[in-house]
Every structure is written in C-alpha cells, then in structure tokens.
C-alpha cells in the first residue's frame, strides 16, 4: 500500500480480516500474517483517533469595510 489508508479504509480492512479469519479458510501462515496485519491496522486506527488534539479556534474577523460592524444577533 503506497498511501497510508484512511481511518475508514483501515477499519474496513480490519473487518475483512476478521471475516476471513473467522471463516477458517486461511492457512496457518496466512492466518498469522493476517493477525499481524490486523494488529497494525488496529494501532493505525487508534492512532488516528488519538492523533488530533481537540480544540476550538476562532477565525479572526477578516478586514475590509464590510466587516467593520461587529457580529451581532440583534439589529437595532
């Protein structure tokens, strides 16, 4: 895989691995490879969930004449 998968792609692959392993069709070596891949995908997903630092930023008001009036909900 050239690009790192997105969270959704990684989770979908993890689900496919579960299905493949639980079907019992995989050979022993394949099963161990799948398990390793599953572990990697799990950690990738978890890292994606943890990576972003939650925060709220304010977009600074843009300059220009049209923005001089302060934002407000109440009109005079």
């Amino acid at each position, binding site marked *: 895989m050239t690009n790192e998968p997105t969270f959704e792609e990684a989770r979908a692959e993890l689900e496919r691995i579960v299905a493949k392993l*639980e079907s019992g069709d995989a050979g022993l070596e394949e*099963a161990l490879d799948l398990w390793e891949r599953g572990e990697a995908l799990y950690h990738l997903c978890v890292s994606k*969930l943890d990576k972003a630092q939650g925060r709220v930023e304010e977009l600074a008001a843009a300059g220009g004449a049209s923005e001089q009036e302060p934002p407000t909900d109440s009109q005079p």
Partner: protein
Amino acid sequence: MKAEPLVYGDRKVYTVSAFNRGVASWIARLPTLWVEGEVTELRRQPGWQTVFFTLKDPAGDSSLPVTMPRAGFDALRLELADGALVHVYGRPELWEQRGTFQLRALTIEPVGIGDALLRLERLKRALAAEGLFAPERKRPLPFLPRLIGLVTGSDAAARHDVIATIQGRYPPARILVAETLVQGPRAPASIARALERVCEAGVDVIVLARGGGSFDDLLPFSDERLVRAVAACPVPVVSAVGHEQDVPLCDLAADVRASTPTAAGRLVVPDWAELTDTLAALRARVAAAARRRADRALRDLEQDRIRLARAPALLLERKRSALEADRERLRRAPALLLERSRARLDSVEGRLRALSPAATLQRGYAIVRREGEIVRAAAALAPGDRVAVELGAGGFGARVEEVSP
C-alpha cells in the same frame, strides 16, 4: 416641448439639452409602476430637497438610481436599513441636466411578511426547478472530519450546543468557529463570506447554526445569495437553523438538515467511545481467530504424529495379512486343480459320447458291413451278397435280395 435640430447642409444636429429634453419627454410617456429591490446608498442630507438611493436586485448585479422629494420621503416615516427590501412605486425619468436615467419615486413600501412569504415561495420554486434542492446533489458527511467549520452568530446557545455536543461525542475534534451576522439585511452576505473563509481554512464539513427566531429573524437564511452559497459550498454543509418547524431555504440546499444545533453536532462526528470499543472488539476477534487457527494447526500436527507412529505396525499388519492370504490360496491350490481337471474330463467324456456311433445306433440306425467293410452305397452290393447288420443292441447276418440304385 419639441427638440429643434440645428441644420448643417443635409445633416441635422441636436444640442445636448435638446437631445436630453427629447429623450426625457419620450421616457415621460412610460407608465407609472412598482419596482422591487434592496435599498442601498441612501442619501438624505439636511438641506437637500431630494432623497437619493440605489435599488438593487438581491441576487443580481443590476441597480437603479431612485429619487424622491424630501417631503414625501419623510412623510412615510420609513426606517430603511441598508439592504432593506422595498417596493417602489414610481415613474422612469431622465434628469435632463445630467442625462442620467432614474426612477422618480411616488411612494415606497417595505416588503411585509405577506409579500415576503410570496417571494419566498416563488424563490423556492425557482431554485427547486433549477435543481438546487435535488437529493442527488446531497453529499455524504465525512466519517472522521479533520477540521469542522462552525458558522454561527455570537448567540451563545446555538454555538454552545454544537461545540458541547461535538466535544462530548468526539473529544479529539477540531472546530473552527466563524462568527457572522445572522440577522438583518447584511446577514446573507456575511454568512456566505464566513462559509468561504472556513472552506479556505481547510475544513472538511461545515455546520451552519442559528437558534430559533421570528420569521423575520430567519429570513436571511432564505436569501437567494446565501442559498446559492450553501449549494455551491465545496464541502458538505449541515444546516441547523431555527426550530424543528422552521425550514428556511438554506436547509433545503444543505447536504444534511439537522433539527437542532445539538442534532447537527451529533451528525458531524462519530461517537469516540463506541468507535474505540468497536476497534478493540475487532482486534480481539482477530487475535482469537488467529489463535484458533494456530490451535487447529497444532491439533492437526498431533494427529499426524500419532498416525506416523502407528504407521510401521500398520504396514507390518498389512504385509502379514497379505502373506496369510497367499498361504491360504496356496493351501487350496491342489484341490482346486483336481476339481478343474475333473470338470475338464467330464466335458471331454460328453463330447466323446456324442461322437460315438453307439449313440446313433441307440436312436434306431444300423451299420451294414460286407466282408467287414461298412457299406455306404447300395451300388456296392449285389443280390446274394452276405452282410452283417449291427444294431444299437446286438446284430444279425443277412443276404441281399435286391438292390435299389
């Protein structure tokens, strides 16, 4: 008021004033009528006898200068904010001195709720016909947004509800808030600009939130410019404007309509706890399935080992029984041979019996011999010859009496 031309040979030429007067008198024949538009650039200077403003199409670029006598304007006691939507009843005219075209207003009426409803319905139908609200235009929301844009007024409730819901469900969420005007004639442009700016900042989904309000309060969210801006937004938009029963047009153009700001917050992020639980469960299933597979391989191996250990004895047993069978066959061989020989002898005897003349004689035939030779044709005999006749049982001697050839 006829405009007289100057004559230069065969060319008729008008002075500027004559030209303006001529056009003005032609325009003055046009009827008095109603024009709808937004008021901008209102100039009502002390001392001026005339009030000036420009009337603009809400969504278009067309504009029209309007004049009204100061006394008439003041008598209407209008509070015309910049951008207010009005109906102007007036006559088109040309201001001769400057050659400028304008609408001379006789009266001005702000657009009331009834008119606004009609306008809204008309706009809704036109935009729907254009396909702006079509279901196939709706885009799915990203499952895990990297940056969420929140476009909202400074009113604490809607803003707080969206942020609190998002952070409660998905603590790592990043939110970029753009505050805008959410009320009044300038709100649509302000909101459209906020949408653009959060897009430029790289958000991958936008929540447009506004708490409840009166019909007038929510009107900017049905403004054609804003509805088009929502439809044209490069990332999916969740619209949460007003209460459940309010359906401003921007709700119809948005990719998803949320009934409340809280609902919008729930729509844009997944539940973090549920997500991590699901992932952990998937991981456990992978590990358990891989372990079961390995256990099976071990059991298979053990079976193989047992079969391997049993193999020599099994082989010996097979050889012994084969040997035993051979021996049995060997033991039975002489008797079998004897039996076969006897059967063969019987069959030879039968065939021999069939060939012997005795059997034929038994059936009533006779053999005639003369001087020991078997007689096969009557021509070999002559009357008076002595012959011996052999029957199935016994025989007799005889003399030939007569021969039939």
